[in-house]
């Protein structure tokens, strides 16, 4: 097995399976050849190996949970809203063939370090920290306020995101564009949030607020199922768009 690791790097199992499948195919070819007339001599045909599908993983972090209820959203708590949005988004992304890893699936306590650990182990191409608030209007997108830094083999835990800030800003740009296209009001900003500051992936924090019209009157509230569905659908579309951008040569 060691030679496989040496040759094929970090994911020998995938290649090992491919090699086993190729061997099986060539063996079956041999058994067929035995029952068929002898073929003219020439170079042995090479089995065609399909290239492995490019990996694309999204981490969804439903903020708060357990004792940490987050902000109050009318009769609801922020921790419940973010969990519901995470579950809905996971289903939508799964239906689009995107692998999703969530930081929590139930009402549990999770500190920012654990959330970042989960995201960093996932080696994801997009990490979304989901939040909700009664203040402001529409969707607030935030990237880390850390100054961009060169990637190092070792980086400080609290500022690990610095090496990814440029990619995170690009992700925020794509999400912003798709949300605007879906007629959702969006604002962009930078913030200091312990969870995303420790993440080593393109990471953004997303805060859902009611939409407001003239005189600050609410036009779509957080408990509006139609609004929730629009936000989730738009986010799924944005991540699909990001996927195509990530995999562009």
């Amino acid at each position, binding site marked *: 097995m060691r030679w496989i690791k040496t040759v094929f790097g970090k994911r020998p199992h995938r290649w090992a399976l491919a090699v086993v499948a190729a061997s099986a195919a060539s063996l079956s070819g041999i058994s067929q050849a035995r029952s068929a007339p002898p073929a003219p001599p020439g170079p042995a045909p090479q089995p065609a190996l399909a290239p492995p599908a490019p990996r694309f993983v999204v981490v969804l972090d439903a903020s*708060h949970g357990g004792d*940490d209820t*987050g*902000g*109050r959203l009318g009769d609801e708590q*922020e921790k419940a809203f973010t969990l519901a949005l995470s579950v809905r988004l996971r289903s939508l992304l799964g239906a689009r063939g995107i692998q999703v890893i969530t930081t929590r699936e139930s009402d549990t306590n999770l500190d920012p370090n654990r959330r970042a650990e989960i995201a960093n182990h996932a080696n994801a191409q997009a990490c979304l920290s989901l*939040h909700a*608030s*009664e*203040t*402001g*209007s529409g969707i*607030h997108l*935030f990237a880390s*306020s*850390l*100054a961009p830094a060169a990637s190092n083999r070792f980086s*400080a835990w*609290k*500022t690990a995101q610095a090496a990814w800030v440029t990619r995170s800003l690009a992700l925020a740009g794509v999400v912003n564009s798709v949300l605007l296209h879906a007629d959702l009001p969006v*604002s*962009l*900003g*930078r*913030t*200091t*949030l*312990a969870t995303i*500051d420790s993440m080593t992936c393109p990471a953004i*924090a997303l*805060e859902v*607020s009611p939409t*407001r019209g003239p005189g*600050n009157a609410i036009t779509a509230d957080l408990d509006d199922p139609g609004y929730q569905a629009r936000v989730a659908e738009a986010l799924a579309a944005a991540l699909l768009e990001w996927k195509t951008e990530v995999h562009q040569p």
Partner: protein
Amino acid sequence: MGVALWNQLEHAHQRLLAGEDSASTKAPEVAPAEQATLLVANDNDNSLITETQSLPLPQDAESRARVILGKLLDLYAASESTHPVSGGAGSVAQVFLLPASSLAAETPVPPFPAGSLGLPCRPPGQPYKPMDEKVPCASEPKSNGHKADANGPQLAVVNLTGSFAASHPSGIEVETLTVQSICATLHANLPRVTEVRFLVDGQRRATLAGHADLTRTYLTTDAIPAAGPHP
């Protein structure tokens, strides 16, 4: 005898009148009114708007910073505020100005003043422990190698009250705007302030109201809005 009594009565009357003349009839002005620049947060478009206010400002820089931030928080506490946060001027307990360290914004352990807060503090010489909630006593910054530079950059330590943090609305945008408006307002009026740290009731606190990280040193340059809406 009668004449003497009359004179004494007259003198007493004059003294009484003189006293009435010198009695204060309006509150004394502690300082002349000056222009102060406030960076006022607006929740509706996630922006900081520059506003100029005329208010009496003391000469002492720390007191001046506290008065200016008090005015900013008064605006937030007013009805029809674009960034409603209760508490007002009394929410800023103290502002300390120290020589800014050359350490980066993400440095977890800055030199704090404290002791003077009347709260438990870490005695000089006792090493810092990451989970130690005590801040160094007042004498420590003088003994840790920093030399005050009269024109050098400064670190402002803003000590907020616990009631302000407890009543602050929860949310990334609203908390970030409060922090950024404080940082930008300090820098606009005290240009030497390049770094800001926050305490709540004299103690370090993880977040303002569940989101904005208060364990970091903020660079005022990050909070200054560009032309037009922020960011």
